[in-house]
């Protein structure tokens, strides 16, 4: 018990005495834990808003699309007869468990033009009277009328149009009568994540038209029927209500097996069926990417936090050499000394985990907006015991991984040398020393400082490589999205998922850059502490304070350069891995060059702060203090 009190007392006193270092440690681990909490908070964030939308629109349990002759000649071979549509409707409405339905509604595959943008759209023909199943909920304007079109809300936002704006559908002018949400289809741009058959010529003659992201619009039934043509035949949508919504997947399976599987169903012109569960999941795609981004971001942030804490812990150990000697001299065992040194970081880690949980909990609603395609909000995420456990475990792991080895090393050091506060012997790299003799004085000093503590330089390089990896992955994402959307040529609608992903990536990038900056400051602080004697001596031998501080800054920039360059292939690889092996577009060289230069400049600028402070310390005092 006495030992625990002693450890607690020493920990509290030391944290109070070295407040700045403690705050830096706290910030580093808090950044990582907050990112993790945000990633965890996005779990199932859209399920609640989807249910609200489903209730508000009396959403279907099952949606079927059919009416295209898919038999012998494959898709696009023409509209089926009205009798076939009736037969298919009868088959579907007589499935077991069906208690109600709306439709079939004609669905036209058309091209919408508005504000100079061109986009493929499924125009659903609706009656002006409310439907019993799936009556889209208006969020603005009024329901369909002759010459008026209602747009799905996410799609309207992506187009940048509102009620009263003019658009054309296959060249026919329409006025936007209203904006609405539905639970029968996933919001833009994920409409085709569930049943979606675009029959229009844009599929085969796309040119610059993206047929991946299709919008949803509602027009009058007459207008939809008028849009059908042999080149773009109509299909039909049927919304079914089941006695037990949970059985929707079972009903689909039953239907498919009774009709000889998907091919058999297609022979009857029933192109596809979507359960409400599948639509709910597709609606969640809007935040699924975000979640993935945050998880990858949290991983990178954790790696950086480990690097930050390792550098800080190393620096703290260097400053506590004498304290270790004193503890050992009064009878502390190496185990107790190690416990004292590690306890500080563990205490800060627990505080950082708590901060991360609070900040994550408070800021999660800012990023858990389910999107315009659904109504309602996700609300404040609940902090589950699993979230707390995972966050605290991660914070403790970061603290332990980065401080255990230096603590054990310090605890096992010689008491006499620890009392003398003799610095750890520096490493010697003959080739670097010889090479540096040919360089200007600040670079000479920088190279030699780097060579003295090569392990720290490797850690610095690794930390910058992680940041650079994150930044290059963000740039690659941006370049790929730009490429997919046809670059800057315009004429295409923005992708809300890409927009949200970009926002998340920017947040992650800011966290990574902040941590990298913190790392640069910590590494420079450790270098200043570690090289105080050699810096003082160098000044006694004629180097100016500016040359010495520039040397410290160079000592941080030199490992940062290879770290940044290494981040380029790693960032491309990270993007490929996170994208599930999709196709990437390598960012322009000037983007990468600008990123490399910006990182190097940021590291130099940040490192120069402690470097200048260190160079201001009188050299005489340092030299006089070390007389043995």
């Amino acid at each position, binding site marked *: 018990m006495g030992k625990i009190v002693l450890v607690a007392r020493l920990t509290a006193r030391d944290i109070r005495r070295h407040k700045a270092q403690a705050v830096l440690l706290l910030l580093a681990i808090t950044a990582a834990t907050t990112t993790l909490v945000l990633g965890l908070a996005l779990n199932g964030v859209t399920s609640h808003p989807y249910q609200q939308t489903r209730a508000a629109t009396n959403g279907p349990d099952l949606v079927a699309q059919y009416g295209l002759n898919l038999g012998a000649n494959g898709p696009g071979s023409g509209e089926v007869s009205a009798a076939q549509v009736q037969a298919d409707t009868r088959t579907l409405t007589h499935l077991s468990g069906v208690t109600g339905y709306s439709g079939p509604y004609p669905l036209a595959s058309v091209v919408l033009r508005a504000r100079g943008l061109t986009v493929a759209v499924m125009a659903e023909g609706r009656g002006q009277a409310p439907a019993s199943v799936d009556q889209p909920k208006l969020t603005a304007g009024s329901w369909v009328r002759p010459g008026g079109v209602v747009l799905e809300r996410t799609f309207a936002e992506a187009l940048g149009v509102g009620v009263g704006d003019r658009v054309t559908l296959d060249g026919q002018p329409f006025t936007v009568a209203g904006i609405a949400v539905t639970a029968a289809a996933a919001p833009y741009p994920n409409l085709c994540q569930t049943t979606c058959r675009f029959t229009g010529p844009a599929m085969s003659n796309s040119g610059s038209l993206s047929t991946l992201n299709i919008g949803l619009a509602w027009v009058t039934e007459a207008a939809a029927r008028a849009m059908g043509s042999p080149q773009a035949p109509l299909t039909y949508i049927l919304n079914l209500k089941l006695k037990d919504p949970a059985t929707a997947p079972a009903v689909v399976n039953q239907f498919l097996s009774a009709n000889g599987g998907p091919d058999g169903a297609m022979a009857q012109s029933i192109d596809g069926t979507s359960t409400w569960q599948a639509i709910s999941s597709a609606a969640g795609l809007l935040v699924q990417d975000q979640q993935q981004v945050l998880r990858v971001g949290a991983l990178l942030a954790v790696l950086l936090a480990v690097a930050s804490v390792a550098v800080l812990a190393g620096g703290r150990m260097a400053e506590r050499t004498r304290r270790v000697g004193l503890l050992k001299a009064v009878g502390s065992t190496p185990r107790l000394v190690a416990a004292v040194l590690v306890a500080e970081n563990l205490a800060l880690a627990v505080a950082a985990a708590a901060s991360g949980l609070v900040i994550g909990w408070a800021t999660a609603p800012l990023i858990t907006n389910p999107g315009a395609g659904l109504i309602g909000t996700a609300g404040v995420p609940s902090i589950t015991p699993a979230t707390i456990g995972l966050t605290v475990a991660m914070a403790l792991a970061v603290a332990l991984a980065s401080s255990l080895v230096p603590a054990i090393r310090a605890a096992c050091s010689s008491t006499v040398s620890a009392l003398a506060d003799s610095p750890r012997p520096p490493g010697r790299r003959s080739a670097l020393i010889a090479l540096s003799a040919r360089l200007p004085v600040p670079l000479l000093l920088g190279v030699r400082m780097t060579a003295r503590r090569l392990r720290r330089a490797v850690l610095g390089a690794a930390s910058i490589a992680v940041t650079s990896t994150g930044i290059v992955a963000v740039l690659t994402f941006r370049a790929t999205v730009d490429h997919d959307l046809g670059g800057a040529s315009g004429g295409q609608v923005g992708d809300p998922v890409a927009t949200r992903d970009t926002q998340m990536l920017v947040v992650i990038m800011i966290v990574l850059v902040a941590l990298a900056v913190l790392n640069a400051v910590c590494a420079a602080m450790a270098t200043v502490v570690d090289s105080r004697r050699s810096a003082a001596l160098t*000044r006694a*031998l004629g180097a100016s304070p500016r040359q010495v501080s520039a040397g410290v800054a160079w000592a941080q920039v030199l490992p940062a350069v290879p770290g940044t360059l290494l981040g380029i292939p790693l960032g491309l690889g990270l993007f490929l891995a996170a994208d599930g092996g999709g196709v990437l577009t390598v960012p322009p060289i000037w983007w990468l060059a600008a990123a490399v230069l910006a990182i190097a400049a940021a590291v130099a600028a940040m490192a120069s702060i402690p470097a200048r402070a260190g160079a201001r310390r009188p050299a005489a005092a340092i*030299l006089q203090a070390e007389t043995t």
Partner: protein
Amino acid sequence: MNSTSDSYVLCARGLRKDHGRDASLVRAVDGVDLGVAAGETVAIMGPSGCGKSTLLYLLGGLDRPTSGEIWLAGQNLTLMSERGLARLRRERIGFVFQAFHLMDELTAVENVELPALLDGRAPRTARRRATGLLERVGLADRAKFLPAQLSGGQRQRVAIARALVADPELVLADEPTGNLDSAATAEVLRLFGQLHAAGQTLVIVTHDPQVAATADRMISMRDGAFTNQARPSDGITGRLGALTGVGG
């Protein structure tokens, strides 16, 4: 600079250095006047904590006085910028420390050539000069040794070689034999003797009478102030100001 101080390489007037303030004020150097002529060796003696090392760092431009003036080769150190002081140390002053202060990761020759490299000299020229100085201090065969592989006396000889690499007008030595055994002390004294004979101006801070005895002048210091001075050949002869000619 007045005519009196013109005759000195190094001249200090009314030098004072305070640490702390109010109740915790400590006057490390208290009104010191000193003139050192070219080629002269001056030993400053006194007990630990009397302020002699602080004085040496002030004279070398490593620390700034609270008041007073220091002139070296016609330049007023107290008016110089940090950059100017750094240049002065590079070109005109050589330091020898009690703790040697060699860079642990550099070999003997690399340590000696360091000030020349800081002065922007070509690596080959700096190496040639360093090798020559190591020969002069009898360590040519130890040029590639790291400080950890050298004895205390050898380390101090490397430090002396380093102090001479820029061919300085003034060498300041802070307890140069403080960490050495008698054999090593004798070797260092022999080197100082050679430097003196070659006309090198030396200011040595020491509490070792054996070292002080090699000087042209010995100055006693206590509580930050000079108390006595003597020439080994003459014995102690009165107050500091009268003898140095700069005090009054």
